[in-house]
C-alpha cells in the first residue's frame, strides 16, 4: 500500500469532519483491552489502589501503541486524560478487587474488615457516600449497616487492653460468653449451665455457646443451622442479622467461618456477587456463560470482553454512542411497544419504486438492484441510485427528516400523526442499520474464508497482507452500530432547536453513512476485483470519522472553528 495515498484521502475527507477534535481512544479496541487486563493483574498486590480512586493514569506499563500499525487499527498513542477506563477482570480476581476497596475503608475508619464489607454493601459500594454519612453521624451510620457492636468491640479492645477482660479473639473461634459489659444482660460468666434460645437446650456449657459482637449467645449447633439456612436461602444471606429478635447486628463471614465452615465458599460467592451487583462501577459481562466483570472508575464506558461481547458498562446494552443510556432505554421500550408486525414489514421490506415488488434486504449495502426489473435505488430513501453519490453532489440525501405535513394543523390527530411519522422515520433507519449490522457480523464470519482465498489467489501474499479485509469488516460492523444509534440520538434531539445543532449532526451522520456505504461496497467486492489500497484507506477514514463524530457529540456539539 502507499502511505501517501492514504494520507491524501484521509485529509480530503477529514475536512468535513471535526478534524481538530482530539482522537479518543476507543475502549473497545482489542489491544487496549489486553493492556488493561495486564494492568489489572499488576495492580492486585497493591492494596492502596482502588478502582474507584480519583484518577490514576491508564496504563503506565503499556507499550507504545504504534505497534498496531500492521492490523491497521487506528493509533491510540495519545489517550486524552478524560478517557474512561473500563477494564475486565475474571471473576477469580474479584476478591482481590473487593479487598482493595475495603482496605482503604478499613484504614480510613479503623474498622474491622467484616464491618467494612457490611458498611460498603449498605452504601452500595459508594465510598464517597459512605464516608460522608460516616463523618456526619458515625453512630447512626454504623447502626444502619448493622455493624455498631462489631466496630465498638474492636475499639474497646484497642482502648482497654485489659488482660482480665474476656476479649474477642482475633481469629474466629468458639468463644466463651462475653462478660456482661454490653447492653444485653447476660448471666455472668460462670460454670452455670446456659440456655440456647433457639433449641431451648438449657444444659449447655459456655464452650458450646457462640455469639456475634452483639453478645447474643446461641449454641453452636443452632448457629450452624441458622447460618446454613440463611446461605441456602440465596444471595440475600449477606444481609442476615443476629438470630436474636430485634437485634440489628449483621452476620459476617467471620461467623460463617467459625460456625458453618462448610458453607464459607458459598458465602464468599454471594458476597462477591453482591459486590458486583450493587456497585454501579462494575458489571457482569452479559455474554452467555461469561464470568468476566467490567470495572470502571467513572461508571461509564464501553468495553469489549474476551468472549467477544461488547457492552456499555453503565447499562449493559451493546455500546450505543452517541445515545445516552437513558434515551436508549426509552427508545428500546418504545420500539418494543410499537414495532409490531406492520412495522416489521415496513422496516424489513420495501416496494421496488418501479415495479412494486416487495423486497427484503439481505445484503449490507444500501445500493439495491431489483431482481425483477433491474431498477437501481437507495434502500433508505427509495430514490434512484443515480441521484446519489459525489457526481451529482447529492451524496446520500436520505437521512434527513423533514416535517412535510402541514404543521399548521394543530389538531390532536394531526399531531399524533406527525409524531408517528417522525418516529417511523427514525425507526426505519435505525432498523435498517440494525439489520445491516447483523449482515456485517455474518459477513465477518465468512471473512476468514475469503481471506484464505485471497491469499491463495496470488503467490506473494502473506496472511498479514490479507488482514485488511477483516479489519475493514470489523470497522463496518462498528459503523453500522454507531449509525444505528445516531438515529436514536437524533430522535431525541430537540426538534425545535434553532441553533443548527440538528442540521450539523445530520450532516455528519450523512457523511458517515456515505463512508460506510463506500466501505461496504468496497469490502463486498468479489475477490478478483478487490482493491486493497482502497479498502485500507476507506477503513482508516471511516474509523477516524466515527471517533470524531462520537467525540463531537460527547463535547456537546458546539460549533467549532
Amino acid at each position, binding site marked *: 500500500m502507499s502511505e501517501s495515498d492514504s494520507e491524501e484521502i484521509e485529509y480530503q475527507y477529514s475536512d468535513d469532519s471535526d478534524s481538530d477534535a482530539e482522537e479518543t481512544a476507543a475502549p473497545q479496541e482489542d489491544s487496549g483491552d489486553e493492556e488493561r487486563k495486564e494492568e489489572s493483574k499488576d495492580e492486585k498486590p497493591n492494596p492502596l489502589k482502588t478502582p474507584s480512586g480519583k484518577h490514576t493514569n491508564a496504563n503506565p506499563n503499556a507499550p507504545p501503541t504504534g505497534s498496531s500499525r500492521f492490523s491497521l487499527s487506528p493509533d491510540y498513542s495519545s489517550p486524552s486524560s478524560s478517557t474512561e477506563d473500563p477494564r475486565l477482570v475474571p471473576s477469580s480476581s474479584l476478591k482481590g478487587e473487593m479487598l482493595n476497596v475495603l482496605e482503604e475503608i478499613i484504614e480510613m475508619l479503623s474498622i474491622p474488615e467484616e464491618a467494612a464489607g457490611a458498611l460498603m454493601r449498605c452504601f452500595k459500594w459508594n465510598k464517597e457516600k459512605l464516608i460522608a454519612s460516616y463523618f456526619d453521624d458515625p453512630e447512626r451510620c454504623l447502626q444502619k449497616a448493622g455493624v455498631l457492636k462489631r466496630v465498638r468491640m474492636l475499639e474497646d479492645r484497642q482502648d482497654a487492653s485489659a488482660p482480665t477482660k474476656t476479649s474477642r479473639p482475633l481469629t474466629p473461634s468458639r468463644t466463651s460468653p462475653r462478660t456482661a459489659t454490653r447492653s444485653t444482660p447476660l448471666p455472668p460468666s460462670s460454670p452455670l449451665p446456659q440456655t440456647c434460645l*433457639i*433449641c431451648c437446650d438449657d444444659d449447655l456449657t459456655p464452650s458450646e455457646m457462640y455469639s456475634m459482637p452483639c453478645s447474643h449467645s446461641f449454641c453452636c449447633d443452632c448457629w450452624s443451622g*441458622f447460618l446454613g*439456612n440463611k446461605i441456602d436461602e440465596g444471595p440475600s444471606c449477606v444481609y442476615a442479622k443476629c438470630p436474636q429478635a430485634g*437485634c440489628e447486628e449483621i452476620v459476617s463471614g467471620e461467623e460463617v467461618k467459625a460456625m458453618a465452615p462448610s458453607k464459607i465458599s458459598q458465602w464468599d460467592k454471594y458476597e462477591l456477587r453482591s459486590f458486583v451487583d450493587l456497585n454501579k462501577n462494575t458489571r457482569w459481562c452479559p455474554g452467555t456463560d461469561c464470568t468476566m466483570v467490567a470495572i470502571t472508575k467513572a461508571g461509564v464506558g464501553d468495553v469489549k470482553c474476551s468472549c467477544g461481547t461488547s457492552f456499555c458498562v453503565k447499562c449493559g446494552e451493546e455500546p450505543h454512542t452517541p445515545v445516552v443510556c437513558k434515551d436508549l432505554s426509552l427508545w428500546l421500550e418504545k420500539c418494543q411497544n410499537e414495532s409490531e408486525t406492520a412495522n416489521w414489514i415496513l422496516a424489513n421490506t420495501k416496494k421496488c419504486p418501479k415495479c412494486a415488488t416487495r423486497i427484503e434486504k439481505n445484503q449490507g449495502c444500501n445500493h439495491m438492484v431489483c431482481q425483477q426489473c433491474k431498477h437501481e435505488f437507495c434502500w433508505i430513501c427509495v430514490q434512484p441510485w443515480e441521484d446519489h453519490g459525489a457526481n451529482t453532489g447529492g451524496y446520500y440525501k436520505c437521512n434527513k427528516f423533514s416535517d412535510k405535513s402541514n404543521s399548521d394543523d394543530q389538531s390532536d390527530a394531526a399531531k399524533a400523526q406527525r409524531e408517528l411519522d417522525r418516529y417511523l422515520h427514525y425507526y426505519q433507519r435505525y432498523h435498517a442499520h440494525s439489520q445491516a449490522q447483523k449482515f456485517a457480523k455474518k459477513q465477518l464470519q465468512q471473512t476468514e474464508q475469503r481471506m484464505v482465498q485471497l491469499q491463495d489467489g496470488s503467490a506473494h501474499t502473506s496472511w498479514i497482507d490479507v488482514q485488511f479485509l477483516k479489519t475493514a469488516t470489523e470497522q463496518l460492523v462498528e459503523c453500522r452500530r454507531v449509525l444505528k444509534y445516531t438515529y436514536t440520538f437524533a430522535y431525541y434531539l430537540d426538534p425545535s432547536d434553532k441553533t443548527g445543532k440538528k442540521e450539523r449532526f445530520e450532516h455528519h451522520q450523512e457523511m458517515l453513512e456515505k463512508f460506510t456505504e463506500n466501505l461496504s461496497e468496497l469490502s463486498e467486492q468479489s475477490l478478483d476485483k478487490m482493491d486493497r489500497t482502497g479498502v485500507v484507506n476507506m477503513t482508516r477514514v471511516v474509523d477516524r470519522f466515527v471517533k470524531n463524530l462520537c467525540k463531537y457529540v460527547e463535547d456537546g456539539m458546539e460549533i467549532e472553528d
Partner: protein
Amino acid sequence: MADNLPRRIVKETQRLIADPVPGISATPYTDNLRYFGVAIEGPAETSYANGVFQLELFLPSEYPMSPPKVRFLTRIYHPNVDKLGRICLDILKDKWSPALQIRTVLLSIQALLSAPNPDDPLDNDVAAVWKNDESKALQLAKEWTRAHAIQGGGKGADDAIVID
C-alpha cells in the same frame, strides 16, 4: 411421632401447657404435634373484648429457622387480617428470628388485636373504613365479634373460615 420432633418443639409445647399465657391457649393436635389449635381471648376494652378467637398454628419443618404459619379461623374485622384469616405481622414474615417462639408470636397477635395498624393493611376495604370512619370500624368489629366469636365459647364451627 414425638421421637422425630425437635427438642425445641417438645420444650415449647410442654411449657405452653404447663405455664400458659394469660388469655391464650395453644394445644397440639395428637395426630400431628406440629399443628396447634389456638384460642386467643379478645383483649379487654377493645372491640374484640369477650370474644374468643380460634386460630391454627403450624410449625413447618424448617422451624425455628422459618416462622410458624398462623391463621385466624374465626372471622374477625381487623385491618391486618384478611378474609381468609391470614395475618399481616412482621415477625411472621421478614422480621422472624429463630429466637422467637410460639409464645411470643401469639402474644404479638394478641397485641395486634389491641393495636390495629390500618397504615399497613392486609384487607384494604377494612383499612379504608378504619382510616375514614374509625367509630364505624370499631362498631363493625364489635358486631363481628358478637356474631362470630361469642357463642358457646366461640367454637362456632359454622362461622369458621373454610379453605379448600
